């Protein structure tokens, strides 16, 4: 059964009416005129108190009776063949209960310093650490290469002598799979068939009135979540595995464990009640999960295997680096003609160094062509990292766009408006940025400030894509005492989905968010999404609302005879169920609940395909950054960030704002400080810590002001779209453009540390004299 609804959809108050057919069992979608009490408002995190008081138990906090501590032995060489492993001394070390090699048969090939060789489980962490030191490994040390330019040379040591396939757990939207050529350490170039050809883009560029060609370099960034990777594995029966995991995907990890140990899905439970950040690196189980479960089975005891900070830097993912050569051109009137991108980068022993997303998907152009290659090096593997490829790509593209605008003597913001006319949301965002940020107060001439400390303002665009996933099942259970529990397996990776679920259910049921008990983070509950690709909120919130809607309908059926009416005449608000036409005729939620037959009832909402595909399939953002650059010390200090973002309908302005703040902070940290440094002579990371792997601290964070645009499409019952990834894409590019505005010199390499600022200033001085 279907019903027709009329909706007012659009950007903010600029709405148009549409008619939509939706299933009878679903509520009328929230549209641009929806008057809501909790959703799209500032609702504090329902688990905030548990987190700030330490009551919240993260994987790191799990302690089970009889639990052992696991520890990896890792290779100290970046390239070697292991011929022999002698564990006899370690086996006899006090407390040691199990030792399991990662690879059963030798020889084993080592491809990066830090690669796991075996794992030990012992009674105490200290015993496990000491036992690992007693293991003798006979290495046949090979030549290695950690520098990607060196890796591209013919004489370079070969990292893989077989073809490497893309890892499936990585979330890299917009890329088409297919076999990609691999020659020695170069995998690629990958060309996207729907793009144009090199000839066409060259012709378009040749016909331009102005072109910019430049090469940009970005560094390797590690995910550095507060909570490291790890699990506590517990075999509760011979064929039943329970696993507490710090993961972004309880169902995915459940599947991996079930496959590895040939168990039915029903016999594997993965639990993530609280999670201390992942940023893409925790989408799969990781070798820690697999080894912890093996150790636990062998020792017949629960095993905790959490990585330390050094291991976290070395082995479980990073944002690949890049070298991007961009050629872009435009006509005198500012219209972009073509964009050509040749990009390569290294994800170490992993894949996924592509950067073309922003160049392909932000602007209108006549022609586009990109070649992207992965270079294998003897370094820890890359992994999906908050908008894979995009901060790198935007750093290059947005500087090139800026440079082209300057060449054509067009205001960089105006230039962006001119070339995004196809995208109404972006047009609105750029106009807001022009009006509400300090954009108009920037230096008309770059580097115009007197004195050694110069200020500037820069702008950049962000892009990401709307994904959501399907078939997630959310249940709402109403008990006869009126209490309500909403359940789904989805994990809260720190972004606030728990609060969103409570708010959406409360909104629908006419209750308060604090009235809703949210049970999540368990693969034994209804199917939920992995938190990657910014899918969680858009994936789960419609199912939450739909299930709550069905629960409300059940409550109306119970209430209707008591209020001498029919269910369609009832509404629920403020803890009451009452007649639409006569609010005085009401019953409290709890009084209606008392009449529930038996103890409770459950309704299920299912995430189906959206009612239609929204016209605009990208999500956007604009960052305007103000900076002070000390031209004598090269130190860059961001002073203010103004951000405009959209994510369909924000489910909670507070947590959306948190996501934007977090994205900007991570973006600034990437732009200015973070850099995984491998020693050129040994291939070993020199800064696997937080002293010399520098991350922005509280004093480094400027004032951040964000505008969250409400964009209603009416494509599902809530209209939510994710924000995690787009929030970090524009930052580094906007900061680089701000630095240019401040000092009149472009920094084409990340991180923009004092040495690079001073070198760029020096080179300009040299060029002038």
């Amino acid at each position, binding site marked *: 059964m279907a019903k027709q609804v009329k909706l007012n959809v659009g950007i903010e108050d600029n709405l148009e009416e549409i008619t939509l057919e939706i299933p009878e069992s679903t509520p009328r979608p929230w549209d641009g005129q929806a008057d809501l009490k909790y959703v799209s408002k500032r609702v504090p995190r329902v688990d905030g108190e548990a987190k700030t008081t330490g009551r919240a138990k993260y994987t790191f906090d799990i302690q089970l009776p009889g639990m052992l501590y696991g520890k990896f032995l890792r290779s100290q060489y970046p390239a070697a063949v292991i011929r022999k492993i002698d564990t006899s001394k370690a086996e006899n070390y006090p407390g040691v209960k199990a030792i399991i090699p990662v690879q059963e048969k030798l020889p084993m090939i080592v491809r990066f310093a830090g690669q796991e060789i075996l794992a030990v489980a012992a009674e105490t962490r200290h015993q496990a650490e000491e036992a690992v030191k007693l293991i003798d490994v006979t290495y046949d040390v090979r030549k290695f290469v950690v520098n990607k330019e060196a890796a591209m040379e013919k004489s370079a040591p070969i990292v893989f002598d077989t073809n490497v396939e893309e890892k499936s757990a990585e979330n890299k939207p917009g890329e088409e799979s297919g076999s990609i050529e691999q020659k020695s350490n170069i995998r690629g170039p990958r060309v996207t068939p729907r793009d144009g050809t090199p000839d066409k883009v060259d012709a378009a560029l040749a016909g331009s009135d102005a072109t910019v060609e430049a090469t940009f370099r970005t560094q390797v960034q590690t995910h550095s979540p507060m909570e490291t990777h790890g699990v506590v594995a517990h075999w509760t029966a011979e064929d039943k595995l329970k696993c507490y995991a710090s993961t972004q995907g309880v169902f995915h990890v459940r599947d991996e464990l079930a496959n590895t140990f040939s168990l039915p899905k029903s016999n594997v439970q993965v639990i993530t009640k609280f999670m201390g950040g992942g940023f893409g690196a925790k989408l799969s189980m990781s070798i820690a999960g697999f080894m912890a479960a093996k150790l636990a089975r062998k020792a017949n005891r629960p095993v905790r295997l959490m990585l330390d900070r050094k291991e976290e830097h070395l082995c479980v993912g990073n944002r690949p680096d890049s070298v991007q050569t961009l050629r872009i051109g435009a006509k005198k009137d500012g219209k972009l003609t073509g964009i050509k991108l040749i990009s390569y980068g290294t994800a170490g022993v992993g894949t996924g160094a592509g950067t073309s997303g922003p160049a392909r998907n932000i602007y209108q152009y006549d022609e586009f062509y990109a070649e992207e290659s992965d270079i294998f090096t003897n370094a820890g593997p890359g992994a999906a990292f908050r908008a894979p490829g995009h901060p790198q790509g935007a750093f290059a593209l947005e500087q090139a766009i800026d440079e082209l605008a300057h060449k054509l003597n067009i205001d960089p913001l105006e230039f962006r408006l001119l070339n995004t006319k196809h995208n109404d949301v972006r047009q609105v965002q750029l106009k807001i940025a022009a009006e509400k940020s300090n954009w108009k107060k920037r230096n008309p001439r770059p580097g115009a400030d007197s004195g050694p400390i110069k200020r500037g303002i820069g702008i950049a665009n962000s892009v990401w894509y709307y994904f959501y996933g399907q078939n997630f099942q959310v249940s709402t259970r109403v008990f006869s005492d009126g209490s309500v529990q909403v359940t789904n397996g989805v994990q809260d990776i720190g972004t606030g989905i728990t609060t969103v679920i409570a708010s959406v259910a409360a909104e629908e049921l006419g209750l308060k968010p604090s009235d809703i008990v949210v049970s999540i983070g368990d693969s034994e509950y209804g199917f939920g999404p992995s938190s990657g690709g910014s899918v969680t909120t858009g994936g789960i919130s419609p199912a939450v609302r739909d299930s709550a809607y069905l629960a409300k309908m059940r409550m109306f059926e119970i209430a209707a005879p008591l209020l001498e009416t029919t269910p369609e005449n009832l509404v629920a608000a403020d803890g009451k169920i009452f007649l639409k036409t006569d609010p005085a005729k009401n019953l409290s939620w709890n009084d209606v609940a008392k009449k529930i037959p038996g103890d409770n009832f459950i309704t299920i909402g299912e995430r189906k395909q959206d009612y239609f595909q929204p016209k605009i399939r990208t999500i956007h953002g604009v960052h305007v950054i103000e900076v002070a650059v000390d031209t004598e*010390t090269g130190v860059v200090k961001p002073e203010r960030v103004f951000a405009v973002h959209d994510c369909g309908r924000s489910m909670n302005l507070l947590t959306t704002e948190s996501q934007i703040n977090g994205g900007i902070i991570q973006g600034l940290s990437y732009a200015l400080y973070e850099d995984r440094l491998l020693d050129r002579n040994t291939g*070993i990371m020199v800064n696997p810590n937080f002293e010399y792997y520098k991350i922005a601290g509280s004093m480094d964070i400027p004032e951040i002001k964000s505008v969250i645009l409400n964009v209603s499409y009416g494509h599902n019952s809530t209209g939510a779209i994710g924000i995690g990834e787009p929030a970090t894409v524009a930052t580094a590019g906007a900061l680089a453009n701000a630095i240019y505005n401040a000092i009149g010199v472009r920094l084409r390499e990340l991180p923009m540390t004092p040495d690079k600022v001073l070198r760029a200033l020096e080179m300009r001085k040299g060029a002038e004299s």
Partner: protein
Amino acid sequence: MKKFEYGMAKNLAGAFEFLKESEAKIKAGGIDLLDLMKEGLESPTRLVNIRTVPELSFIKKDEKGNLHIGATTTLAEIAAHSEIQTRYRALAQAAKAVATPQIRNVATVGGNLCQRPRCWYFRSADFNCLRNGGDHCLADEGENKYHAIFGNQDGCVVVHPSGTAVALMALDAKLVIARKKESREIHIADFWVTPEDDVTRENILKHDEILTEIILPATEKSTTSYYFKQKEKQSFDWPIADVAVVLEMNGKKCTASKIVLGSAAPVPWRIEKAEQVLKDKQISVTLARQAAAAAMVDANPLSQNAYKVPVFSAVIYRTICWAAGIDPFAA
């Protein structure tokens, strides 16, 4: 980490008693030592805690006007001390600039002076650094962005990490080193050991000795000082350059000065060439810049740290100006 005994000394005599064990180590705040122990670079069989010795924590003035600071006085206590803030401003600023509030509340000034270098090769068990018994310096031809631009030709290119050392050098401090019942007073400049003299140590303290006290000479009203630490980040970070400047003023004229650099060389690095530029001159931004240029004449950067030369130049001229009470950015 290896197993160890832990003793809490009640007084200095007790501390020396505990120290008899040849593999014993003194622990004050523990900030530096525990990191080294966790990495397996130090494995004492016994730790002697001297933070429990009341007679080592004090700030007091003697009848001659000298200021005495006990070795386990915390950096937070020094930073907050009003007399240090006014008469020995550079020291208060240096103490305040260390790490984070949490660390300053625990870290002691003695420990700050005696901490070991922060070189990433030295600090990691993954590398066989010269200072840890290896056969050559790994930073010299390796990753040396944060390493020395002075005094770096004797095999090891670490930089001295203590900001309070830099301030105390400029302030002409003396150190008291105790050994059982004896004690001796040395000038802080004689405390440091260069890589040329012994690459395995950074100061002259012997195993059975304890740094107990710092003595700051009485100052005239005409003495002014300033310390500045330049970091890449604003939050917790090791400096890329730090400088302490002490000026003796006669009216507007500078009669004498001390300029000492940290994070520049394996030991705190005094720059007499720069001091000479200031002598008997009226301080101005121009003069300060001349002094800074003179300070960098002998700099010898490595493959990745040439940028530190202009950074030091900037920090030196600015700090001279701040010490003299003039605005370095005045047009």
